[in-house]
């Protein structure tokens, strides 16, 4: 089985400061991986580098996605290739209706893949079904994208986009934070529907709770820009009980040697 995502010896810096270093991660098709780590450890940085955000400089290493060199692709090309990032802080876009935007995004991706536009009727049918599934009310679809949405509404809306765009790799950056317990369950159900042998997920979270619903195949502990330990789903429970203290780099170890 070829890996869907393969990150090798990655070093990333922002404004000249090394954030990720010697970072390795391989995600196979059909797998769900969780990345956990303290604040500032570099989780969102990983997500942004995958999605191609400007200002995140890859100073070393490679990322292959479905056999392609991901780092040569523009953000929109990554989306067309099947990558989706549910952001920790979705951006508010005033003046652009949520529903309209979603249709533009779908059609842009279809166009990039040489597929015809989705018909208005098909789009609406699918949108209604998926919106109901993740608990996005119709009026939220008509409102401007994320503008004035509550924290939870933004997160649900990210998952709605995820379900509509059906990517091969979904990266969820703290989709659970800001969600009440019922919303968490709804969102997790939505995500689980997308699980399939040809898709993979990278779930970034602080809490074991989400992983009760989206059960991961692998859990990675990211501390200070490096994966310090990887294991099965039990690792998340261990973290919940003991925190990250055990994973802090020892003072003797030069943590940013490669910078």
């Amino acid at each position, binding site marked *: 089985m070829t890996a869907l995502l393969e990150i090798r010896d990655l070093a990333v810096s922002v404004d000249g400061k090394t954030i990720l270093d010697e970072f390795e991660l391989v995600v196979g098709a059909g797998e769900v991986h969780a990345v956990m780590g303290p604040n500032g450890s570099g989780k969102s940085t990983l997500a942004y580098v995958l999605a191609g955000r400007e200002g995140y400089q890859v100073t070393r290493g490679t990322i292959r996605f479905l056999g392609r060199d991901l780092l040569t692709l523009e953000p*929109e090309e990554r989306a067309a290739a099947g990558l989706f990032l549910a952001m920790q802080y979705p*951006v508010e*876009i005033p003046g652009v209706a949520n529903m309209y935007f979603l249709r533009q995004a779908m059609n842009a991706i279809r166009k990039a893949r040489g597929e015809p536009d989705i018909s208005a009727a098909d789009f609406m049918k699918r949108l209604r079904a998926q919106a109901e599934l993740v608990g996005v009310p119709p009026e939220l679809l008509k409102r401007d994208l994320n503008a004035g949405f509550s924290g939870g509404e933004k997160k649900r809306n990210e998952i709605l986009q995820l379900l509509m765009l059906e990517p091969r790799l979904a990266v969820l950056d703290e989709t659970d934070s800001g969600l009440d317990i019922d919303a968490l369950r709804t969102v997790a159900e939505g995500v689980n529907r997308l699980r399939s042998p040809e898709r993979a997920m990278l779930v970034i979270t602080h809490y074991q709770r989400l992983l009760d619903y989206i059960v991961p195949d692998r859990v990675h502990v990211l501390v200070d820009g490096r994966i310090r330990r990887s294991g099965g789903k039990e690792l998340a429970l261990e973290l919940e009980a003991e925190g990250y203290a055990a994973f802090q780099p020892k003072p003797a170890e030069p943590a940013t040697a490669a910078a």
Partner: protein
Amino acid sequence: MPTARAVEPVPELLELWATSRAYLPGKGPVPGLRDAAFAAFREVGFPTTRAEAWKYTNVVPWVNRPLRLPPRDVPGTDRITAWFAGGVKARRLIFVNGHLLPELAHVGGLPGGVTVRGLGRLLQEEPDRVADALAELDEPRGLTALNTAFASAGAWIELQDGAALDEPLQLLFLTTATADSVLCNLRNVVRLGRAARLHLIETHVALGDAKPLSNVVSQVRLGEGAELRQDRVEIGAAPAALIERSRTVIAAGGRLCRTVATLGYGLSRHEQGVRIVGAGAEALLNGVFTPTGKEHVDTQIRVEHAAPSCHSNQFYKGVVDGRSHAVFAGKILVERAAQKTDAYQSNNNLLLSDEAEIDSKPELEIYADDVKCSHGATIGELDPAALFYLRSRGLPAALARSLLIFGWAEEVLERMADEATRLQARRAFLARLPGGAVLGEP
């Protein structure tokens, strides 16, 4: 000679006056008024950039050139109907190249107390009333004086106390490809009596490569508790120039809500004076200007609060691209009597090109002590985080940019009361954005 003396008109304009003077409509006091206006125009001349209000707009090349009065031209009706707005029941006056087309007017069967007429006929039939109205704007301004001297068309709209027009009234001003060097002097008079209500749509369109000059003067009066909603689009080809000066006086409890979208014209200059003379009145002035290429847009607003407990808000946005130049000067004047005034102004701009220029000048002048006033102007670029968000969803960079720009302007466009006008504005704006056609109709 006074130092601020403006530019001497070219001889062709003097000749134009001499040859056309006798044929302009209006009896009684009107010819004398025209003569006086032209004399005033000769005295004052065209404004130069030395005048504060014209500091950033060199209007001389646009106005001081050989111009002619408009010949009649009736374009195919399809070219006209494309610009209809206000819904199927809307009333309408259509002006092509500065002439009213009476055969295409739709102002029959108006409710009682509502008068909608072309100024040309009225000048002949009721010259005294029109002369009184024309004399209302007596400040010595070159372009206004020129307008008074030549004015032969425009809309005369009068609503008696308590009268209301439930359907919108559209004034469609169109210039065609044959209108090169044509001088359209349009004069509009809008008078709303006590508690009268009107929804006015002004559609300015310049077609083709002609280089006409529309010199418009509008005088608006809102009686006590009167309500005027005004939607205005300016969709003009690059060589055309549209200069308008409007003066609006609002009595107690009156309410003005005006939204302007400038989506073209090589030169668009809009000077709005609003004077609030009675308590509890409101003036909302919304606008978006979107110059690109070498277009020049100049908005000059002056809101005068002369009565207590009134509210005004200037909400203007700019999208400034290419090698264009945008000017916004918004002033709030609060007189001593105008206690408890709430007056706001904002002008936020997206500057999209290194070669474009924006001059934004907010100004407050306050003589009352118990007021809430604020103003602010910003000039910024597109938010990179927003751009990334859209691109990460698959939208190509150019499209993502256009969508963000559209969203920026939409905050103003959505304030238009008439849906058809809003759609026209959106469509015209999208057509000016890279990849905008793909964006379709949001």
